[in-house]
């Protein structure tokens, strides 16, 4: 981090609290975070890299990873675009029921993901409220890649929306007013002035959505059908292989997912640091 907090200076000489507190923190983190993460890597590579590699390149494993990335990607695209729109509308216009709408949009953060998946099933499933009407026409929403995307959107939408709305809310309005007095249309102002101010929020919102969607399990397992090679995402693959006793296969994908989230959060962390420094 850029700005280190200055050390508290009310202790003369050697401050024993400092090493003690840092040590305690690390000691507590060991069983909670560090050791579990480390064991994925230790176990996954314990039988040699070739075994790890073949587990990783198994067709079903590759498919699961690709499906996870693809569905997360489309959920992210949707969330950024629609989140931007929703944040703009809910930040700029005040109307009756606005707060209720904000709460509803943000609700999925608090809903258990299994409930979210179940809710989607009840709507779109073959016997669901809408699915029942579509099924006779051969349209099946559930148990497809589309269903996974729907579940991802449902669960992650509040993340992108929340980040972008915060920026809209605190944005200096005189920038947009200046643009208008200079002669810009609403669209030109949005494109040249508003959107650039949201760059950071868009990147943050997208990465958060993506990271969350790639790891989504609870809702996905209900709506996807968990069909290996067809609708099985990476987290589902880990769960399935673990249940089958193929620990190494599960482990290989676990390593990839762990590295991916590590990468995403490093980007987020340092990007935010850079944005704050500006």
């Amino acid at each position, binding site marked *: 981090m850029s700005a280190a907090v200055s050390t508290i200076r009310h202790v003369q000489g050697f401050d024993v609290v400092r090493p003690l507190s840092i040590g305690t923190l690390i000691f507590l983190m060991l069983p909670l975070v560090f050791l579990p993460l480390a064991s994925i890597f230790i176990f996954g590579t314990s039988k040699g890299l070739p075994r790890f590699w073949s587990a990783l390149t198994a067709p079903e494993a590759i498919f699961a990873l690709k499906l996870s990335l693809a569905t997360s990607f489309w959920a992210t695209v949707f969330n950024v675009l629609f989140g931007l729109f929703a944040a703009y509308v809910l930040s700029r216009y005040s109307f009756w029921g606005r707060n209720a709408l904000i709460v509803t949009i943000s609700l999925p953060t608090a809903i258990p993901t299994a409930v979210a998946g179940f809710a989607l099933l009840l709507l779109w499933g073959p016997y669901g409220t809408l699915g029942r009407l579509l099924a006779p026409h051969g349209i099946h929403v559930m148990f497809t890649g589309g269903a996974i995307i729907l579940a991802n959107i449902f669960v992650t939408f509040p993340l992108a929306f929340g980040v972008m709305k915060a920026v809209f809310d605190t944005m200096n309005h005189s920038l947009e007013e200046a*643009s*208008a*007095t200079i002669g*810009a249309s609403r669209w030109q102002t949005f494109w*040249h*002035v508003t959107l650039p101010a949201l760059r950071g929020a868009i990147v943050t919102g997208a990465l958060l959505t993506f990271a969350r969607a790639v790891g989504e399990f609870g809702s996905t397992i209900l709506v996807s059908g968990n069909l290996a090679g067809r609708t099985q995402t990476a987290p589902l693959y880990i769960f399935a292989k673990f249940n089958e006793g193929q620990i190494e296969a599960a482990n290989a994908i676990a390593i990839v997912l762990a590295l991916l989230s590590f990468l995403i959060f490093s980007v987020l962390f340092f990007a935010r640091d850079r944005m704050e420094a500006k």
Partner: protein
Amino acid sequence: MLAAHQIATFLPRFTATTHEAPKPRRIAASVTGLSKQFGNTPVLKDINFDIAEGETLVLLGASGSGKTTILRIIAGLERPDTGRVILHGRDVSDLPARERGVGVIFQSYALFPNMTVEQNIGYGLRIRRRNGKEIRETVDRLLELVRLTEHRRKYPSQLSGGQQQRVAIARTLAYEPEVVLFDEPFGALDAQTRTRLRSEIRALLRKVNVPAIFITHDQEEALELGDRIAVLNAGRIEQIGTPQEVYDQSASEYVATFLGRANLVRGVHQGEKVTLVFRPEDVRLGDEQLRGCHQLGTGIVKEVVFAGAYERLSVQVDDTEIVVTRMKPQTNAQRLKTGDRVKVGLDAYTVLAPLCGPLRISAASAVNDRFSAENAEVRRGPQIKASKESDLLWN
């Protein structure tokens, strides 16, 4: 209590109101009958003024006087309840901000942080889809005008407050606005920078000859910047005139006290409340009868404060305490300390009578005797008569 016969001598005998023939002015912008309410709170009441080509008008008022609302209405960022805005003969009242061609210098400058200095300046032309060559030429010319050529590739965050403000001005000048509006342009700057920027902007505006409206709560700024000043109080224009007019011939107590220090001496004349208004620097103190000025009486020095360039005294004349400022030559010629008795005279003052309006009287006019007493009475109506037998009572 001042003796009635003493005070009577202050009533209109000679007036020095200037009778200049109004210069032919080409009106660049005007607002008529503006009014605006926020909820049940009226913020503007029947605002009328116009501004000539190349003129600088300052809207001066305390916070909450409605000055920013006027600016936002002219810019099209706010809709008035009633009234019209006319720019160069075109009624723009119903046009959105972007079609008005008004330049606004926001208090925060509102420079686009993601654009360089030259991109900021060229923005107005880019969105008007002017060709690249024209944009480059205009930007070059304006960069030179505001002396920022060497900073053209910098971002606003890399510039000082004054430089940012010059970018903001250049950005509006680029699309040749009908009028430039400045919203408290020096609010965020320290006193020294403020003074420097004031003269810079004044020089710049003279060069480009664009009509400008400034908004400020700072009376010094208003006097220095404005060709004319409109003093606002609670949503109304109390007075509009040249800096000399509003300072020397304040139309109301509010104007007099808002623009610098003023002494107010109240009285009743033939049933009408009248007020003598005079500036601390228009008071003269002396050991004996003061010649060439209006005698106020004898006073006792209550307090002497050294304020650097001048000395500020508090003098009790009967039951009224007045503030007097004296420059160094006077201070040196006559040392005064607390408790001294002095003769008090006025070089100039204004009489405020609600039914007749203000009347400026100065010692010079008495000497020159340019205007007759009858003259003064005709213009001021019969309420105040300049007679020694006046039954004027001073509160």
